[in-house]
């Protein structure tokens, strides 16, 4: 089922949670709503579910306006960050809940319910756990029960609110891979909220990046990572170095160096900022181009296969972070306190007037 969100606005008192949101989610896709806390992503998800009302605009499922339809009539499965399992019921009863409460003529027979629950238990790999209570399960297991419970009613849309947020890093990674696989099997239109860029990039077909109640960018993981539409997205999707300078006819002048800015050929002496990811910077011993900036190494440490070099620019005292592979690092034989030259392989220049961060 496709979801269409038209001109949705939402306030909490004087706080503007969402401003004029327009978004279409095609049938069968797995979409991530990504943003920092307070960006409105959870509010948007709850609005799609019908757990929050909207003031303006509409929510359409397959073209049908459901703005006024109660959550219990919307055919959505909702998975909460803190599982929200029914503590007084066994795992089996939790999963069967949505089927057991149906009106008699719509309710499957006892046998069918049992079969369905067992199928779902297999799916979430909890077959032996039917008669446990939620308090006897680990966090990852509880979240899988919550997912099975949501899937039991065969929802047309699956909504997940930071589903792995309360789990530790390893379980989180396992579970999100598993969610991806599950989605490939059952193809239910799914939307999940996360503040973890890695999670969104890893799992989603498409990512909606939100900030301050607005959508900043919408695209596939590689689109949003490689072509960020705004400084916010650039900053949010990973580490970044900022180079302040003046932009004039396709050149960003930093004083001691000049960067190429082919996107801005017609700019005329404006203040601008060049954004460079740490792994897009190279280190050399000699100044070989006008793009190279002198900097003094202040700290070096390794995280897994990469080395992080922190240095201070000689011209402005600003810090620059560079990421090197182990091989490059070994070849350069850098020492703390040494002055080297850094130059960017890729720069994205934004003019602050266009985007406020």
């Amino acid at each position, binding site marked *: 089922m496709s979801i269409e969100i038209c001109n949705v606005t939402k306030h909490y008192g004087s706080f503007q949670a969402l401003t004029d949101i327009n978004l279409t989610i095609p049938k069968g896709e797995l979409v991530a709503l990504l943003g920092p806390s307070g960006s409105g992503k959870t509010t948007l998800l709850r609005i799609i*579910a019908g*757990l929050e009302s909207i003031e303006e605009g509409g929510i359409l499922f397959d073209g049908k306006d459901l703005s006024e339809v*109660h*959550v*219990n*009539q*919307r055919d*959505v*499965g*909702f998975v*909460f960050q*803190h599982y*929200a*399992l*029914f*503590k*007084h*019921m*066994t795992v089996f009863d939790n999963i069967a*809940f*949505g089927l057991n*409460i*149906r009106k008699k003529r719509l309710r499957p027979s006892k046998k069918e319910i049992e079969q369905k629950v067992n199928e779902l238990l297999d799916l979430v790999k909890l077959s032996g756990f039917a008669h446990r*209570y*939620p*308090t*006897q399960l680990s966090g990852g297991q509880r979240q899988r029960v*919550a997912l099975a*419970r*949501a899937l*039991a*009613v065969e929802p047309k849309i699956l909504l997940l609110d930071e589903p792995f947020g309360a789990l530790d890093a390893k379980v989180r990674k396992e579970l999100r891979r598993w969610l991806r696989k599950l989605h490939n099997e059952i193809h239910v239109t799914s939307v999940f909220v996360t503040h973890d860029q890695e999670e969104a990039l890893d799992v989603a077909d498409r990512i909606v990046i939100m900030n301050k109640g607005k959508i900043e960018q919408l695209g596939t993981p590689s689109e949003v990572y490689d072509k960020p539409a705004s400084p916010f997205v650039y900053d949010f999707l990973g580490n970044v170095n900022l180079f302040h300078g003046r932009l004039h006819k396709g050149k960003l002048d930093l004083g001691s160096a000049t960067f190429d800015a082919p996107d801005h050929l017609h700019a005329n002496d404006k203040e601008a900022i060049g954004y460079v990811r740490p792994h897009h910077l190279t280190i050399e011993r000699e100044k070989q181009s006008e793009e190279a900036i002198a900097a003094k190494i202040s700290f070096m440490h390794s995280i897994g296969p990469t080395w992080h070099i922190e240095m201070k620019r000689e011209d402005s005292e600003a810090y620059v972070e560079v990421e090197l592979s182990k091989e490059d690092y070994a070849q350069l034989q850098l020492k703390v306190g040494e002055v080297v030259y850094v130059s960017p392989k890729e720069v994205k220049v934004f003019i602050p007037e266009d985007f406020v961060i």
Partner: protein
Amino acid sequence: MKKKHKKRNILPGFGLSMGITTLYISLFILIPLSMVFIESSKLGWSEFWQVVTNERMMHAYKISFATSFAAALLNGIFGFIIAWVLVRYRFPGKRLIDGLIDLPFALPTAVAGIALTTLYAQDGWLGQYFMAIGIKISFTPLGIMIALMFIGLPFVVRMVQPVLENLEREVEEAASSLGATKQQTFLKVIFPEVLPALLAGFSLAFARGLGEYGSVVFIAGNMPMKTEIAPLMIMTKLEQFDYAGATAIAVVMLLVSFICLIFINLLQKWSRKHELQDE
């Protein structure tokens, strides 16, 4: 050589705190209660049996247990509603009402008894209207029940309130997203979570009702075979310096109350089975 590791508790001082617990319970509960048994044993079996099973006594037990049970039951229902309103809604005067709930705890029971009697007497403010429709409240078991409801209400409200406050909103939303109506969400999700606390409140109110004397004697009228409660019978015996007889009745009350409370506790344990089960 293997070194034995002593299991460490997070908080030290188990020995000391356990000692204090034992001493305290002995001094204030076990020894006084055992005096009741020792005193009543002066009677001998046949006399004991006769004191505790005569017709007037049997009737008093019946009144005591029936009114306490009925009052605790009604408090269970209405106390739940009051707790629900106090937790779920915001309205002017909420904190005042919340404070009023505890008043029956603090009020001397005799004051409560006199106030209720004036109110529900045949020519009292409320009593006259009930008389008009043919319901007599003061000097009937109904009056006793009302006094016990007054006394027992805080127990239920104060037990249920924190549990309702701690219920996760998300659990209700989850039920709703699975297609549950409001009634289903209440009956199948909220109520089972609150039931243990409700039972605990019920048993406290019930136990308190059984022992209540001060607020009841005024409104009850104390007519033999009609509105005499068991604690009153104990007082009557004491006034006649029949200490052994009084303690004999106390023994019966103690044993029956104990059995009732054990039963309610078992019920409560059953309703919390999901929390108590361990790996």
